[in-house]
């Protein structure tokens, strides 16, 4: 029997789902990046596979409430393997009207919207440029979606009434309400976030307490509020067994450098000048002073690479990190480094260009610059990372090649994988390949003569640490004689040296792994050939296409110069080759030129990664 003055018990249904994309969106100041990262951490700790995509405006504080100021964090998590941040969203958290406006086009039919009510007041609607009198939360435009209007601002305020905190601080903690609510919705625990808050505010316990209180309030709101009737459960993913951590591409690159330094026994020197989206590598490395890492914030990118060249001459593992505009500034010095034949690692975290372009957006448009962007003929090894965690391996490989082959090496990453994250089954110290360093200890010529350009069977010259007794020698940008390194203007000698330097790089082919099929088989009709950060989208698209019966395979390149030895042979086996790139067809040009095959390009230059659907659609069209 119903007793009329008692509230009916709330009934919550629990649905099992295998993957979900959540988009946290708000003003730059709403703390959506942190909320998204914390949510991701918790999902990962619960065993889900995850991929994230932080998507933020280039202005630090674009006008509040406007479309230009929207900062988004997208997380794709699931009980199956996840390779992309997801094409469209299952859930949008919209802290204001502008956020909803930006994200709506990519919300799945029937998707969930959690709207912060006060972000849809008259002022915010006007800032988001909705026509006068139009409020999407109140008209019928969202009929086909599940909309939860929550007065997050007010609920946060009520929760912290009497806490003694100022209005500003109270308002700032409303993202914890959102986080609590979302954690409830996806049936996750609060423990990890509580720990995080306690660590972060260990010196300000009153702030920590307030944040935890709001977090719990958000969670409890989900549990008790009538409007939330469904919880989603995502089982742990069946990932290969092992110990995992979450990692972004930039952090992976930074620790890849530290690892290479530790394994080679070489001191690490980074010369760098801040530039989005590469700066975090400089930030990260600056923290490893206890491991003897030297970071030098130079006056510009030219000084950054030049200081690294100087450090390399003294026997350091020398690195410079940048993005496209900085890469342009480094080109003259890269020519010098190629000419000196000193080890050097150059990391270019690409962004939309030319010029300042789309500084916070992603692109793969520096490939041809990496390949050819130097005066004179100065071929260099070029490697590209394919995912956040792959930045570690690629950078580590680059260090190994640079040191073992006495050459500058260029690593291409990009904004998508640099800031994006994924779980990583990280290696142990002892799993890492050794890096052989052979400094010249005594004169290598007759009568105590030093021959700085005497080459070994791989055409590699000796590395001579400045400061070594009896090995004084000069190196320089002028053309030189082989062996002695003495300046030579002799015509034939220049041709010989040009060829030697190129051949040295070419011979690295014998030290890199062969290209292999990632998915599909060697006799498929269509090959999708990719490089760099398009890996996840291509992999998912090819996998799904194969499952649907299409005859397609996927090869992904880490080594772009030199290309793997067997690549030509593999390519000739396919009827058609499709090359998707976030540029107008740069690998396409290289592949066509190298192998004379009629490969087809697929470009996207919108500052955004490919969606799986876009690639799949191409596969189907070409099949």
């Amino acid at each position, binding site marked *: 029997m119903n007793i009329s003055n008692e509230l009916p018990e709330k009934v919550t249904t629990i649905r099992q789902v295998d993957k979900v994309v959540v988009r946290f969106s708000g003003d730059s100041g709403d703390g959506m990046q942190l909320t998204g990262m914390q949510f991701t*951490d918790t999902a*990962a*700790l619960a*065993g889900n596979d995850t991929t994230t995509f932080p998507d933020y405006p280039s202005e630090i504080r674009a006008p509040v409430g406007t479309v230009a100021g929207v900062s988004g964090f997208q997380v794709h998590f699931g009980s199956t393997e996840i390779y992309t941040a997801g094409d469209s969203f299952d859930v949008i958290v919209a802290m204001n009207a502008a956020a909803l406006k930006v994200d709506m086009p990519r919300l799945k039919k029937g998707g969930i919207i959690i709207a912060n009510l006060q972000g849809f007041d008259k002022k915010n609607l006007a800032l988001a440029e909705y026509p006068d009198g139009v409020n999407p939360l109140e008209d019928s435009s969202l009929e086909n979606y599940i909309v939860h209007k929550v007065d997050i601002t007010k609920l946060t305020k009520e929760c912290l009434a009497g806490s003694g905190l100022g209005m500003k601080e109270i308002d700032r903690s409303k993202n914890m309400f959102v986080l609590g609510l979302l954690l409830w919705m996806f049936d996750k625990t609060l423990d990890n976030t509580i720990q995080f808050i306690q660590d972060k505010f260990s010196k300000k316990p009153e702030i920590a307490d307030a944040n935890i209180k709001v977090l719990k309030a958000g969670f409890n709101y989900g549990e008790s509020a009538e409007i939330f009737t469904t919880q989603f459960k995502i089982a*742990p993913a069946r990932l*290969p*067994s*092992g*110990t*995992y*951590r*979450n990692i972004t591409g930039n952090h992976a690159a930074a620790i890849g450098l*530290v*690892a290479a330094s*530790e394994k080679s026994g070489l001191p690490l*020197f980074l010369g760098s000048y801040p530039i989005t989206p590469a700066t975090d590598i400089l930030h990260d490395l600056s923290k*490893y*002073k*206890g*491991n*003897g890492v*030297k970071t*030098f914030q*130079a*006056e*510009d990118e*030219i*000084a950054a690479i*030049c*200081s*690294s*060249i*100087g*450090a390399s*001459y*003294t*026997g*350091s593992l*020398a690195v410079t990190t940048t993005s496209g505009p900085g890469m342009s500034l480094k080109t*003259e*010095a890269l*020519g*010098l480094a190629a000419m000196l034949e000193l080890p050097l690692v150059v990391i270019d975290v690409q962004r939309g260009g030319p010029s300042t372009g789309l500084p916070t957006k992603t692109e793969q448009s520096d490939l041809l610059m990496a390949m050819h962007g130097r005066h004179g003929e100065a071929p260099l090894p070029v490697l590209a990372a394919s995912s956040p965690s792959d930045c570690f391996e690629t950078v580590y490989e680059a260090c190994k090649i640079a040191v073992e082959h006495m050459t500058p090496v260029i690593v291409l990453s990009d904004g998508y994988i640099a800031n994006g994250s994924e779980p990583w089954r*990280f290696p*142990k*110290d002892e799993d890492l390949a050794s890096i052989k360093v052979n400094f010249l200890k005594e004169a290598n010529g007759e009568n105590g003569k030093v021959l700085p350009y005497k080459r070994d069977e791989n055409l590699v010259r000796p590395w001579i640490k*400045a*400061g*070594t*007794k*009896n090995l*004084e*020698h*000069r*190196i*320089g*940008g*002028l053309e030189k004689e082989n062996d002695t390194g*003495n*300046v030579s203007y002799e015509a034939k000698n220049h041709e010989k040296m040009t060829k030697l330097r190129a051949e040295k790089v070419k011979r690295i082919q014998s030290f890199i792994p062969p290209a292999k099929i990632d998915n599909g088989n060697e006799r498929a009709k269509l090959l999708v050939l990719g490089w760099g950060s398009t890996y996840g989208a291509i992999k998912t698209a090819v996998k799904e296409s194969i499952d649907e019966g299409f005859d397609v395979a996927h090869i992904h390149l880490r080594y772009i110069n030199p290309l793997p030895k067997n690549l030509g042979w593999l390519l000739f086996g396919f009827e058609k080759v499709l090359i998707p790139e976030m540029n107008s067809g740069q690998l396409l040009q290289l592949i066509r030129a190298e192998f004379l095959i009629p490969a087809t390009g697929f470009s996207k230059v919108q500052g955004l990664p490919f969606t799986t659907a876009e690639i799949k659609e191409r596969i189907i069209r070409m099949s």
Partner: protein
Amino acid sequence: METLSLDTNEKLNPKDFSSGMEVKWCPGCGDYSILKQVQTIFPDLGIEKEKFVFISGIGCSSRFTYYMDTYGIHSIHGRAAAIASGVKAANPDLDVWIVSGDGDAFSIGGNHFIHLMRKNFDVNYLVFNNQIYSLTKGQYSPTSERGKITKSSPYGSIEEPFNPSELALGAKASFVSRTLDREPKHMQTMLKRAHAHKGTSFVEVYQNCPVFNDGTFFPFSDKETKKEEALFLENGKPLIFGNNEDKGIRLDGLKPVVVDLNSNGFSASDLWIHDENDKTKANLISRFFDAEFNDTFPRPFGVIYAEERPVYEEDMQHQIEEIKTKKGKISLNKILSGDKTWNIL
């Protein structure tokens, strides 16, 4: 009877610093003198030979590196200071010398020049100032005077030149000096002082280019004019010059004035006493170059300014040591795992 010498640290001689490469400067080029003075004083510096590193840019001057039997990089135009920063930061034990020209240092390399001064690595920076781009066969440089006729300024340069010592002081240089190719002894003293100074030592060397800018500095070294035109600074000594050492400079408030020591009743004790550590005075001395002083004031040579302040590579090293003791080295496995991990069975 022969005795075995136990002294393995045999003193080097200037020849030991010659690389044996054919020196290819034009006959009469002032660069020869600089090379000679450097090779002359190097054995006296008490540094192991393998510790010396020369970094140069591009220009006639920058060929210097090839002629020294030391470590060295003949690099690219304007970037020597940046490369040297990396050398010194990575290995503070090395004795680093930068060789550059007026174009190399103040034009294309201007940014690196000022930042090196500010950062104060313990390196020596020699700029061979011939007030011309010589290697490219004679264009005006950032130190060429207004009105200068060159191939790229056939009707006269319309540019105001840099005053290198003023520029260096403005960039917070901790050691500013000037010498000239035709004063070997003075140059040797400056080179030794520069080497002894801890911090970036800027030595501007007036260098004659007989081919593209002959005689520019002769008034400062020719017997007939030198005494009137040049002022050789000595720390703690009054500023005296003139054919009969009969002129002095005194300070009238903050205004330097030239006084006649014979008339007017001024004596040496009324004059400005050179104090290398006084930046205000150093700024004034550096400005004897300017138009308002140029006619009546002599050109100063010597150590204009010297100041002890922290050097970059030491601070860098200290910070590393401090963090090492405070936080310790993080094991590679810990770096790889980060703070938060989870297991999948």
